[in-house]
């Protein structure tokens, strides 16, 4: 049931919430990351998100699998948008539901923190005054090493 995808079309918050509905669950939580109109005092007119798409799909799937273990259910839907977004558009939607609230908050927060830490996605801010710049991001974790040749 859990779903984690990169999308090019706008994210629909109501659809995300509906996708995790479950009559056995008392808590639903929806996080939305939204493009802001300024960063560090500079007016922004939009952000372009770029992904290493094949790898990002795998990493997002792994993050959601880990979050399902925290949540104790598989009612998680995550969509990360790529492409050119305007101010106010949703870049990331995370919907979770669970029988109780504590797990829902923990799982949702885990997903957003891991996305920031390791999802191979980059964003380029486009400034109102003209010009653009890649956002300085987080150094991703090194891999475990592939081990000796088989």
């Amino acid at each position: 049931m859990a779903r984690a995808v990169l999308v090019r079309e706008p994210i629909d918050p109501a659809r995300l919430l509906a996708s995790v509905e479950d009559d056995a669950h008392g808590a639903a939580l929806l996080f939305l990351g939204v493009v802001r109109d300024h960063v560090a005092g500079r007016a922004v007119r939009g952000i372009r998100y770029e992904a290493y798409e094949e790898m990002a799909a795998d990493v997002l799937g792994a993050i959601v699998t880990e979050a399902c273990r925290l949540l104790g259910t598989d009612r998680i839907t995550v969509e990360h948008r790529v492409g050119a977004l305007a101010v106010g558009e949703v870049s990331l939607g995370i919907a979770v539901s669970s029988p109780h609230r504590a797990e829902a908050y923990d799982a949702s927060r885990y997903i957003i923190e891991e996305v920031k830490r390791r999802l191979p996605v980059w964003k380029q801010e486009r400034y109102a005054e003209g010009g653009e710049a890649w956002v300085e991001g987080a150094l991703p974790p090194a891999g475990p090493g592939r081990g000796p040749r088989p």
Partner: protein
Amino acid sequence: MPLIVRTLFFAAYRDLAGEPSAEVELPDGARVSDLVACLRERGGAFARLPPRPAVALNRCYASLEDELRAGDEVALIPPVAGG
């Protein structure tokens, strides 16, 4: 026998490289770090790639010490900024 390794550049690194990917020929037994060194030695904008970038090998985060094999896909991963 030399290896041909497909190398991907994203975001700021693609801007530096001026292209999204390159085929790099390396001697047998080369490591990911050798691939990065080889690219930097091409000079020009490539020389501005960091000496020890984060890397992915076949779509998993990897170590610069990993040994390369024929058919590998390496990606140089700038600091990530999803969300």
